């Protein structure tokens, strides 16, 4: 039987091109295993062969993720891989991001892929739903164990095994729910869990709670008196008549309400569309939701430089977390592009 073809991905450091000074190198590929790939090959055995090693600098990948992933794909695909293995990246942020992005790109192209990371690597949260990520230690000191786990999983994936529950094979859970038939009905399982809890015994809840990581605090780059400040809200602000058709909850979109030339909000200009709270007080005076009148006063008095001309808003009711993150990312991107220096978000 022909051996299963594996392409391995490494950054500039593990690919032996250099350290931080080489982080700007572009995508390239070499035949055969390299660096930690040699140790990986030894663990993969004769059934799986690392036919090539793709390498790219971490900065190149981080600065141009999509085009870099495309270029790497173009280099990798001629090697006809059955499987792509990236890293492991341990707790390295940019390397983790590169490995995750490449694996996600490969998976999207129908080629199974897997990588390895430490639990605090931000790329885990970003890519665990799109590729298999083996749990590893935080640093390259844990290379041996990481490669053991990666090689074992690679064998299973290469045999065509479909990994339905990544958490059961040493990976981070993909965050998906799958329909399954359980022996005991829900009431029995719940009582069993309760009894275990009362007895101080370990149990695993069937409800997975979302985990949040604290937002890294940005700092203001200019004095307040010269700053451009944006007002934002999750309380359901829309232009009168809701021309953007924002739903009043469970939404995946946001509105951009112009306040250019407005000294305060009037019911002729805007209204509040939110299904999660009694909006009568804010609808009778929308400044109670977004403090435009007071902000204009403070702007005139010179406490801050200038009010940004658009209020971005959404209706934060029953919103799916991934929608919330995407809305936040898009609004953040617009604020950065507009050179806004600070933002005030009012929440209901």
């Amino acid at each position: 039987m022909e051996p299963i073809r594996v392409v391995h991905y490494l950054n500039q450091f593990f690919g032996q091109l250099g350290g931080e000074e080489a982080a700007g190198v572009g995508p390239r590929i070499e035949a055969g295993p390299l660096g930690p790939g040699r140790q990986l090959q030894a663990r993969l055995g004769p059934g799986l062969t690392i036919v090539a090693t793709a390498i790219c600098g971490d900065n190149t990948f981080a600065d141009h993720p999509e085009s870099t992933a495309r270029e790497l794909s173009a280099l990798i695909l001629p090697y006809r891989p059955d499987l792509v293995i990236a890293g492991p990246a341990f707790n390295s942020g940019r390397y983790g991001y590169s490995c995750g992005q490449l694996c996600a790109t490969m998976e999207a192209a129908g080629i199974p892929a897997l990588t390895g990371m430490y639990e605090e690597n931000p790329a885990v949260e970003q890519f665990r739903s799109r590729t298999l990520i083996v749990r590893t230690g935080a640093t390259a000191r844990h290379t041996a164990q990481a490669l053991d786990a990666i090689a074992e999983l690679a064998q299973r994936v290469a045999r065509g095994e479909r990994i339905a529950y990544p958490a059961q094979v040493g990976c981070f859970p993909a965050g998906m729910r799958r329909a399954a038939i359980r022996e005991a009905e829900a009431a029995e399982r719940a009582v069993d869990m309760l009894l275990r809890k009362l007895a101080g015994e370990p149990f695993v809840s069937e409800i997975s709670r979302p985990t949040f990581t604290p937002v890294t605090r940005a700092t203001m780059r200019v004095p307040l008196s010269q700053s451009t400040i944006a007002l934002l809200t999750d309380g359901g602000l829309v232009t009168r008549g809701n021309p953007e058709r924002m739903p009043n909850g469970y939404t995946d979109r946001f509105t951009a309400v112009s306040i250019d030339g407005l000294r305060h909000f009037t019911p002729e200009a805007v209204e509040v569309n939110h299904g999660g709270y009694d909006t009568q007080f804010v609808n009778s005076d929308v400044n109670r939701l977004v403090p435009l009148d007071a902000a204009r006063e403070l702007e005139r008095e010179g406490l801050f430089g200038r009010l940004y001309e658009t209020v971005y808003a959404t209706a934060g009711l029953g919103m799916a977390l991934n929608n919330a993150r995407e809305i936040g990312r898009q609004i953040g991107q617009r604020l950065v592009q507009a050179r806004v220096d600070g933002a005030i978000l009012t929440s209901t």
Partner: protein
Amino acid sequence: MGVPIVQVCSMRQVAEMVGSPRIVIGKSVLHPTGDPSLDESGELALRRHILESALAMLAAGEHSNAA
């Protein structure tokens, strides 16, 4: 580089749970920057106070404060 932000809200624990970087406590879930029991000038003063707290926090990089 990100944009510094402060959240004006009433449910501090929710804001803390989701990792909000700066928190100012608003008047109410129903009207974070208003108070229907006050007259017009009283409400405006309330809004100014909340905004001044929020802006000061943005400028100083402070962590948390009640309005």
